[in-house]
C-alpha cells in the first residue's frame, strides 16, 4: 500500500487560526462560550482527535453491516467530515430560518446550506450503521449578525477545503477518495464565492496548504459552537394538575 503522509508535516495552519480569530468580532463568539458545557466540547474534541488518530473510538465490532467496506481509518475520516458537515449545514440552515441577513448573504447561505445538507445525506448514506449522530450546536447570534456570519462562513469554507486536502492522501480507498474530491471542489467554490461577496481576494496563493484534523478540531473547539443538547425528555413522575 502506498505510504500515507505523516501527521505532522502539514500541521502548520497559523493562517487558518488567524482567519478564525478574526471571526470573533467584539467577542461575540466568546460571549456564546459561557453558555456551552465544557464537558461536551471536550468530548467533541476527543472524538475528533480519536478519529484523527485512526482510533475510530465510535466504531464497534458489531458494525459488520455497514454500507461500505471501508477501513477503520477511512470510516474515522468520514465520521469527522460528517460532524463538520453537520456543523456547517446547521449554521447555514439557522441563518436561512432566522432570515436576518442581507439578501445577497442570505442567497449565498440558502445555496450553500442546500449543498451542505446534501453532503450530510451523502456521507450518512455511505457510513450506514457507522454514522454518528449530530451533536448539539449553539451559534449564538452569529446567524443573525451579518459581519459575524460572513467571517465565520469564510473561515469555515477555507478550512473545510484545507481539511479535505489533508485527508485525501490519507484515505485507503480510491473510491472514497474519488467521492471526497467531488466535495472538495465544491467547498473551494463556496470559499471563493463568500470571499468575493465580502470583498476578499478569492484566491490568494498559487498553492493552498492543507489543515490537519487535529487543527480543525481545535479550531472548531475554539468557536464553542458545539454544545450539549437540552434534556427535554426523561423518565419521571408527572406533577401536572391531572
Amino acid at each position, binding site marked *: 500500500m502506498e505510504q500515507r503522509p505523516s501527521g505532522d508535516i502539514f500541521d502548520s495552519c497559523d493562517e487558518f487560526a488567524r482567519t478564525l480569530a478574526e471571526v470573533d468580532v467584539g467577542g461575540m463568539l466568546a460571549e456564546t462560550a*459561557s453558555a456551552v458545557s465544557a464537558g461536551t466540547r471536550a468530548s467533541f474534541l476527543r472524538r475528533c482527535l480519536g478519529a484523527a488518530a485512526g482510533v475510530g473510538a465510535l466504531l464497534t465490532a458489531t458494525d459488520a453491516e455497514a454500507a*461500505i467496506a471501508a477501513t477503520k481509518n477511512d470510516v474515522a475520516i468520514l465520521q469527522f467530515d460528517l460532524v463538520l458537515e453537520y456543523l456547517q449545514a446547521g449554521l447555514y440552515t439557522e441563518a436561512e430560518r432566522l432570515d436576518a441577513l442581507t439578501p445577497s448573504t442570505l442567497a449565498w447561505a440558502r445555496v450553500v446550506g*442546500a449543498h451542505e445538507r*446534501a453532503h450530510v*445525506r451523502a456521507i450518512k448514506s455511505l457510513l450506514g450503521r457507522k454514522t454518528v449522530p449530530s451533536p448539539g450546536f449553539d451559534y449564538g447570534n452569529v446567524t*443573525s449578525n451579518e459581519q459575524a456570519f460572513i467571517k465565520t462562513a469564510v473561515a469555515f469554507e477555507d478550512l473545510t477545503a484545507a481539511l479535505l486536502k489533508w485527508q485525501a492522501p490519507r484515505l485507503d480507498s480510491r473510491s*472514497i477518495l474519488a467521492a471526497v474530491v467531488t466535495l472538495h471542489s465544491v467547498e473551494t467554490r463556496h470559499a471563493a464565492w463568500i470571499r468575493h461577496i465580502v470583498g476578499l481576494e478569492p484566491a490568494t496563493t498559487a498553492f493552498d496548504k492543507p489543515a490537519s484534523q487535529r487543527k480543525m478540531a481545535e479550531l472548531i473547539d475554539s468557536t464553542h459552537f458545539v454544545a450539549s443538547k437540552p434534556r427535554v425528555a426523561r423518565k419521571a413522575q408527572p406533577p401536572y*394538575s391531572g
Partner: protein
Amino acid sequence: MPKGRTVLAFGLALAFVGTATAVHGTAGHGRSTNSASSASRALLAAAGGLPSPERPAFVVGSPTRLRKGETSARFAPVMREIEARRRPSRSAGRVAELARETPEGTTNIVLVLAATTREDGQWVRVRLPVLPNGQTGWVPRRVLGGYQFVHTRLVVDRDRSTATLFSDGHTVFHAAVGIGRPESPTPRGDFYIREKLSGFGNPFYGPVAYGTSARSAVLTDWPGGGFIGIHGTNEPQLIPGRISHGCIRMRNDDILRLSRLMPVGTPLTIE
C-alpha cells in the same frame, strides 16, 4: 477501455485539438499548425496510458432545499438563571425569574418570539411559563443555548374538545380530548410544550405525559405549581368532556400516536 468509449474519447480529443488550433490561428500567435498538432498528439498519447477512473463511493445528490412552505418556531434552553425583563434592558422592570431546570429535572426551555440588538448585545423576547398565563419577557441572548426549530403546532379547541397537530400547516393528528371542569378550567392562550415524561408507571396519566408552559389559574398550590399537562388516562370512557383539573387528557393510543409526531418546543394554542 471498451472500444466504443475509446472511439468517443478519441473523437472528443480531436474536436478539442481542432478547436485549440483554430483559436491559435485566430489569435495570431504565429505558431505553426504542425507544432500544435504534435503537442496535442503527445498529450493524447500520455492520456491514453491512464487507468480507468475509480467509481466514487458516493455521489452527492441534488442540493437539499428547505421544505417549501416550511413553518418554524424556535426554542432555546436557559443556560443561566436570569430575570426576564419587560423591555430589552437590564434596568427594565422584572417580569419573572427563569431557572435552568424544571422541577421534573428537565432543561428549562423557552419559546423565542423576537430578537433585537442593543448596545450591550442581542436580546430576545421569550414566552414565559409563569402566572398569569400569556406573559412574555426579554432576556439577553447569551443566557440561552442554541436554537432548535420545530415545524409543528398543536391547537386545542375547548368548545369541541379536540386536539389538532399541524406540521408545516398540514393536519397530521386529530383526536378527542378531555379538558378542565368548569371549576378548574383549562386556560386559554398561547403556550408551548416544555417537556416529555414517560416510564412513570402511573395509570392515571397513561403511558406518556407532556408538560406545557400553561398553568392552572385556580390550582396554584398544586405540587409543582399546577402546570397543565397533556397525557393519557385510565378512564378513556370519559373522553371527550370536561373532566380534568385543567390538564388535557387523551385516550392512551392517541397520546402514544401524538408522542411520535410532536417534539418538545411545539407551540400550543388553547382556544
